[in-house]
């Protein structure tokens, strides 16, 4: 059974803090999303935390829809969402839509960007984009074992300093570093760790245009959390965001999406087991 209590880290003194909850996600307290490039080990992290069996494998594109599962950490129940891998949030191929829409409209309490330690440059591109959308970001630097094998040393402290969000080294396969990751996620959500994500500057003209638009968006939708990002997307001519603004969907971001979430998780719970 999947809801059996197993430890993610047998050697940790506090290993009883964590429990895999499988598909028991009916009443969760927090939502955490797993984003990242294809093949960085998102599904492996997901499986390790929830005890579920998402398809993993070393080829890009095997996770095509989002999967949901649960885990409990220090008596808080989390719903974990495994998203399809994407190189960027700018384009609009199908799987990227799924990921992007969730990070933006699903309003997770925290987004873990799973990165490949052996190809950080490529992975940080996406991390920077996620950080444009939300403050609540934790970078999981996965595949540390592969990095070691290739003689690479990754200084996660320098990474965290530069990015302005926590960066945790992990090996998803052996659950190394998983406790720290969960602790950090909890701290970011509860506000014990304050993040100040690096945001791109761009030239003056661009800055001015973004500011003008963002002000208007905030004016129309006062409580909106990421007007700046929406403004950038509008300038880029993003069809999905245009529609969301026109239809007022952005206004419903908070309430509406959470209803849909709850419904979706129930469906998954019914249909998820094959």
């Amino acid at each position, binding site marked *: 059974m999947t809801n059996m209590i197993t430890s993610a880290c047998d050697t940790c003194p506090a290993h009883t803090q964590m429990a895999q909850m499988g598909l028991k996600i009916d009443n969760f307290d927090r939502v955490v999303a797993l984003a990242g490039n294809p093949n960085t080990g998102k599904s492996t992290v997901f499986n390790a935390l929830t005890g579920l069996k998402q398809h993993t494998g070393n080829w*890009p594109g095997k996770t095509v829809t989002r999967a949901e599962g649960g885990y409990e950490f220090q008596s808080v129940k989390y719903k974990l969402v495994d998203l399809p891998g994407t190189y960027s949030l700018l384009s609009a191929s199908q799987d990227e839509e799924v990921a992007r829409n969730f990070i933006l409209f699903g309003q997770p309490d925290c987004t873990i960007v799973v990165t490949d330690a052996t190809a*950080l440059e490529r992975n940080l591109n996406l991390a920077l984009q996620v950080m444009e959308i939300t403050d609540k970001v934790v970078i999981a630097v996965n595949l540390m074992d592969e990095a070691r094998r290739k*003689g690479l040393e990754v200084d996660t402290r*320098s990474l965290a300093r*530069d990015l302005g969000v926590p960066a945790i080294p992990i090996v998803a*396969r052996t659950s190394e570093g998983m406790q720290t990751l969960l602790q950090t996620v909890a701290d970011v959500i509860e506000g014990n760790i304050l993040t100040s994500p690096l945001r791109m500057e761009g030239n003056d003209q661009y800055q001015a245009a973004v500011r003008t638009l963002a002000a208007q968006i905030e004016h129309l939708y006062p409580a909106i959390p990421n007007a700046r990002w929406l403004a950038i997307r509008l300038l880029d001519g993003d069809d999905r965001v245009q529609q969301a603004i*026109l239809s007022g969907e952005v206004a419903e971001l908070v309430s509406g999406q959470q209803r849909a979430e709850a419904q979706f998780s129930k469906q998954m719970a019914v249909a998820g087991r094959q």
Partner: protein
Amino acid sequence: MTIPSITAQDILDQAESLRPQLKEGFRDEIVKSLYSEAARISGRAVHQVGNTKWDFDQKIDRLVTSPWTGLPIMLLLLAGVFWVTIVFANIPSQMIATALFWIEDQAANLFTSIGAPWWLTGFIWHGVYRGLAWVIAVMLPPMAIFFPIFTILEDLGYLPRVAFNLDWLFKRAGAHGKQALSMAMGFGCNAAGVISTRVIDSPRERLIAILTNNFVPCNGRFPTLIMLATVFVAASFSPTVSSFIAAGAVLAVVLIGVFFTLLMSWILSRTVLKGEASAFTLELPPYRKPNFSRILYTSLIDRTIFVLWRAIKTAAPAGALIWILANININGVSLAREIANFLNPFGLLLGLDGVIMLAYIIAIPANEIVVPTMMMVYSGVGMMTEITGFGEIRALLIDGNGWTMLTAINLMLFSLLHNPCGTTIWTIYKETKSTKWTVLSVVITLGTAFLVTFITASIARLLGWV
């Protein structure tokens, strides 16, 4: 102060008017600055502290994709996987068969001795149970060997290299190179293969991949191929080479499947799915050390047991059905025989026979039970033909039922090409949300199967081989 009210449309118009003011290539600029920032940060955080196995991976990659060695290595690997499967599955299969049929005898005897009515004994033990026994004996060992090997290749990162090696062929056929990935998944299960076509962005190329996925023999059909290759094609060779011959035969069948995949893709992309090639980019991820315990678990529990369980669920009712058909007699002839006789002329036309056709009809829900079904009809349910190994199968088929080499070869071809199983058809429907494409997927496969077997049978007869 009154603030002029803004509508959503105003905001969009504003964006529209601001856009041309920005430098052309706004997007290019964003991405460029994102990447240069990423490069700067990662440059500060990552240091090379020693040049270990990094080069080794590259050397391997050069070998498996090189113009000279890439394709041969791929074929050898495939043949190797089949060979290992055949060699290591053979003995366990025979042992399981012996054991399970021994149990059948004992149980049936027990039932008879405690005075159970003949039809109860027959129905339970020679019907339902025998169906199950056949499925487990024929399927379990090859799957338990094939799936782990396959999962290792998947985890290692070899599959994208296959797509890379073969893309040119798919391009020529008007399809997408990632179709090779979905075909690879099809070896496991065609339904999974159909789902995995989602990695292809273009709807047109994705449909081609969906409609042709069935030309890859799935694990349900592999045992059929392996059994036929072992029992017929390879049997006349000396024991030392026979396993190689069998693996070669299976490989040949798979290559024929690839050929038909390409051919059908070519035809589709020039007829109903006419259109343009989409942009092709394929990432070749770095090799990763497979995690053996995890792989054993995934492939044995998730895949093998999953597929076997599905087979068992259809095999039990199929076994029951066959037993009933075999035991309802009309004018002294069993209903099963009656139907088989009715189908016989058509079967013969395709180089097969009526029993095989009947087995295929019964096995539409799950292809994997074709051989078991066939064996049950042939062996005449109710009478106690002792089948304890593959040797007896050969005798039963050739001496008892007039099989020839043509029958075996055409059955292999037919099982390779015929329509998808029920689950796959249902999956195709769910993925395409269209009756039209679903029907087409059945029509083109079944049509190909009929046509090809008819042609081989006709040629064989014309040349007097049979």
